[in-house]
């Protein structure tokens, strides 16, 4: 069955989730991955969106973090201050999702600016929930397409902490959550080296050569001692994901 690299990325992320997860979900691919997991192997996964919606089960993917669909299908909806205080800072989230315009080898992320902060070449949206998601969730999954423009040697700005300068630098910032344990791209899955915390290729998506990953990374990327191959998307996974997107497309086309 044919599939796109983005579908592979989404499916790989979905598979890493289980019924035991309480996810802080972002818009876009994370939202697709979390709902794919919920609609396939993890029906009891708890999805929380920062708009205050607890245990939401959207039938279509939200375009914004606060679409009506999220509240209508939620167990309940709390205020945004409560969401950030009791639920995120309270340490109740097992897995947070992040992405960004730029990532470095220690999985720090930039979604703030390209160029200098005071006079940027491109002003990006900024951190939103990311600075505290990055440190408060039990672990972080990062989902982003891989290219030399996005996988950079040095970030223009550190919007949210990954492993800082590597090693135990994360702990030095007073952070004792795990941080980014997996990075899902359209080419491969990366995981931090247990000691140095530098991202290494853990598995290549089917048909992807090492050189493609090297060429799409702005630093000399390392490979794990034993690099696996990401299992192919199943027909079921592709079907559920595509139906989800089709429903979403139909719903978002509608004017109010």
């Amino acid at each position, binding site marked *: 069955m044919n599939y796109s690299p983005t579908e592979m990325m989404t499916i790989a992320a979905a598979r890493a989730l289980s019924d035991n997860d309480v996810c802080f979900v972002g*818009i*876009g691919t994370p939202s697709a991955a979390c709902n794919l997991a919920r609609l396939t192997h993890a029906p009891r996964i708890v999805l929380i969106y*920062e*708009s*205050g*919606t607890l245990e939401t089960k959207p039938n279509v993917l*939200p*375009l*914004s*973090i*606060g*679409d*009506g669909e*999220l*509240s*209508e299908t939620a167990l309940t*909806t709390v*205020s*945004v*201050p409560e*969401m*950030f*205080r009791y639920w*995120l*800072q309270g340490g109740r989230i097992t897995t947070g999702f992040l992405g960004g315009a730029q990532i470095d080898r220690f999985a*720090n992320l930039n979604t*703030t600016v390209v160029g200098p*902060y*005071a006079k*940027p070449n491109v*002003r990006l*949206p*900024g*951190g*939103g*929930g*990311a*600075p*505290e998601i*990055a*440190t*408060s969730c039990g672990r972080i999954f990062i989902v982003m397409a891989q290219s030399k423009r996005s996988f950079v040697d040095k970030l223009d*700005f*550190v*919007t*949210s*902490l990954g492993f*800082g300068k590597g090693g135990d630098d*994360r702990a030095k*910032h*007073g*952070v004792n959550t795990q941080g980014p344990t997996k990075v899902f791209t359209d080419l491969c899955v990366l995981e931090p080296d247990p000691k140095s915390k530098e991202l290494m290729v853990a598995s290549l998506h089917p048909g992807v050569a090492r050189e493609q990953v090297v060429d799409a990374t702005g630093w000399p990327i390392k490979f794990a001692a034993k690099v696996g191959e990401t299992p192919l998307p199943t027909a079921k996974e592709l079907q559920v994901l595509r139906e989800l997107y089709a429903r979403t497309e139909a*719903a*978002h*086309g*509608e*004017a*109010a």
Partner: protein
Amino acid sequence: MATFVSLAEAVEANVKDGDKVAMEGFTHLIPFAAGHEVIRQQRKHLTLVRMTPDLIYDQLIGMGAADKLMFSWVGNPGVGSLHRFRDAYEKGWPRPIEIEEHSHAAMANAYEAGAAGLPFATFRGYRGAELKRVNPNIKEIVCPFTAEKLAAVPAMKLDCAIVHAQRADRAGNVMFEGIVGVQKEAVLSAKRSIVTVEEIVDDFGERSPNAVILPGWTLSAVVKVPGGAHPSYAHGYYKRDNAFYKAWDAIARDRDSFRAWIDEHVLGKGPDAFAAHARKAA
């Protein structure tokens, strides 16, 4: 004490040049009609505050209403950049705009502290994040019991908060349902407030004993503006006009098409135009 007035009167009385104003609504219940009235009344030098500056602030900034933007995520959700904001910030058109940037957690906590009458908010935040290097309003405090270092930001103090809600009753009490965001905290952080509502009812009738309601005596003005959150949405009334959010990208990308849109849809219209979007779910 809330008074029932026209939208023009509400903005006239409660939004002044140079004010620090928040038009809040976390995707949901964004007070677009009121924002348009602020544009029509040509307010200037505003400090605009919003966690997620949305199309509403793109429109205000594109019309030169703001000197400063305080925010935590600036973009068209799920679509892309706010072109009018970027044009102002990167190129100074139609006038330069200053920014004060925070994280969502910082903004949410600042609103909470503002509502609570505290001078600052504290939270476990910004660890390893560079924003605290460039924003002098992010400081550190030390827990007097554990010596843990935490982040601190000033509590929100607004001149005026503007929000939209589903219903008001005849006493001017206002009820919010669905994604309630930081609206209550924004109003309670402000000296003055305007609430636009879908409808005014004799009383709220059967409801949860814990319904999210702001008493009329905490509000300055209540205005009935059906459809007033469009293209945002009102839970139980009408849906988010996602198609318009997508269309905005092209409208706002170009200065001329933006001005043409404003001329036609804001300057050439009044709050009644929003009624076309009003609808009540069965």
